[in-house]
């Protein structure tokens, strides 16, 4: 089961990365982890006014929605976890902190069917609770 979940997670990450890539995101880091937790994707993205922003992305994938949507799995706790990880990352990489003084957290929620084909993929920018 664990093996299975990891595989699925990998699929989700790949899907999210390619989707964001198409949207003009540049992926800096994948599956960045420390002993305190992990963050799925770290990207940069320049918005319409040409300003570049640093984005930490939480990817959530579910196979079928019978047991709840991926959106339901992302709550306040998950968000503060991502925020903490972001701060860890910036602490470890001061050159990035210098370049991007602020950051935002996005979520990509993916639902796949039993054949692991993507049924839907939603990207939510700048999460706040």
């Amino acid at each position, binding site marked *: 089961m664990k093996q299975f979940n990891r595989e699925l997670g990998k699929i989700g990450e790949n899907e999210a990365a390619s989707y964001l890539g198409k949207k003009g995101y540049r992926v800096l880091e994948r599956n960045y982890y420390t002993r305190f937790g992990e963050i799925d994707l770290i990207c940069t993205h320049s918005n319409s006014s040409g300003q570049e922003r640093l984005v930490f992305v939480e990817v959530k994938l579910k196979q079928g929605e019978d047991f709840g*949507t991926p*959106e339901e799995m*992302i709550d306040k706790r998950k968000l503060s976890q991502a925020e903490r990880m972001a701060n860890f990352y910036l602490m470890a990489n001061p050159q990035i902190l210098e370049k991007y003084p602020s950051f935002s957290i996005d*979520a990509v929620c993916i639902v796949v069917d039993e054949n692991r084909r993507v049924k839907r993929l939603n990207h*939510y920018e700048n*999460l706040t*609770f």
Partner: protein
Amino acid sequence: MLTKVLSAAHFGLETIPIEVEVNVAKKGFPGFNIIGLPNKSIEEAKERVKTALINSGVEFPNLKIIVNLAPADIPKEGSLYDLPIAIGILASMQEVLMPKEKSFFYGELSLDGGLRHTRGVLLLALAAKNLRIRDVFVPGQSAYEAAVVGGVSVYPVKNLEELVNHLNGAQKINKLPRTKSLKPEAESELVEFDFSEIVGQESAKRAVTIAAAGGHNIFMQGPPGAGKTMLARAIPGISPPLGDEEALEVTKIYSVTGNIPPGGGLIRSRPFRAAHHTTSRIGLIGGGSNPHPGEISLAHNGVLFLDEFPEFPRATLEALRQPMEDGKVSITRIAGSITFPARFMLVAAANPCPCGYLGDPKKECKCSPRMIMKYQAKLSGPLMDRIDLHIQVPAVDVDKLMPASAKASARRSPTSGQIRGKVVKARQVQYKRFKGLKIYNNANMKNKHIKDFCNIDKEALGLLKQAVNTYGLSARTYFRLIKVSQTIADLEQGRKVTAQHVAEALQYRIRAQE
């Protein structure tokens, strides 16, 4: 899309309209948030509303939903916002058309989409009438409370589906017709004892009858097992039914405290509340950080029975003093000050001493004078001064309890029904006397009413004056004596208060002051 749904919040017996604003946004991370100082029970509405909608065949939107309860600075509680939130979400999804008329939506949802009995519906209907809001949508089981109020269309809603069909014009819900003034329901079989079952105690029965007829406070003292509790518990059987205005006042309190059973309407039988002596002060008087009515308010227009009177903590009893005089109680907390009505008839029972046999002709009292003093000191002068009738309930002679003689006495002594007839007649005299004054019995009279209404003859006045001088009675006692005399006169349908009436009233007052 944004939808505004009207609902209400209750503070004490006041109702404030609350606007439930529901925004379902296409953009943003999906979620369901309620703001506007909700407490836990409203926070949990999320899960109820969500499941109820799904079980009513509506797909719950995977969108960003924000619910705001305005005005946002008043703390809100209760489960009544389930229905307005659900309707707000449906309207924002354009699944349902909001009515053009201003309407109140109110009620708790069950997970299956049904509406549950919710407290406070009567107050909602009264508020709707005052605010000129025509339509009121409430749970079917609570709707009879609202149907008492005229000038408001009450729609009893069984479940969400029914309401959606109604609002979309597919199938209308029938308005509940106004329950017109209301015959007293068949006399409740809940009365525990009949007066004819109580052996002996003729003078005590007489005093209790007077108390019930005029709403006077009564204090019964006697050895254990004499029948004090039985006498008190028989009072509901002789109490007159509530008048229309009285019933409305009582039902308001019962509605807001959730004491009306599902499907129940106006309360017609006079409240009888028996509070145990471990009842806390707040339980008795009312209070809490969000003030809640206590037993004295639940006994409004009815009877509050305190058995083992001296066993109550002193502070609890002394707290009764002010409400007994004013007929209402003001509770002030940080959240605000709330006044609840509390015009009750106090029935108190006590033993004369810790062992209970002080003054008993057969059994010797084992208590030391110090113990007796300590016991009796629990009942303070000012408190006892507010009680109009003090009676002794002596132990019953064994011979009278024997089956043969008990049967004979039961045949001789009047039944509760007969006494009730007399009491009701006396009350009718009082209703007529105080018409339009919001006073319903002699005990509620203020001093100025005594001047206006009590027709005391000269001889009686002389006797009163003499009594006050001889026994050193207080001014309050003087006025209370007149009120009791008036009730005795009313029981006889007498036009004047005579010396005989005063003498009887005096006898109940003096006896316990020995």
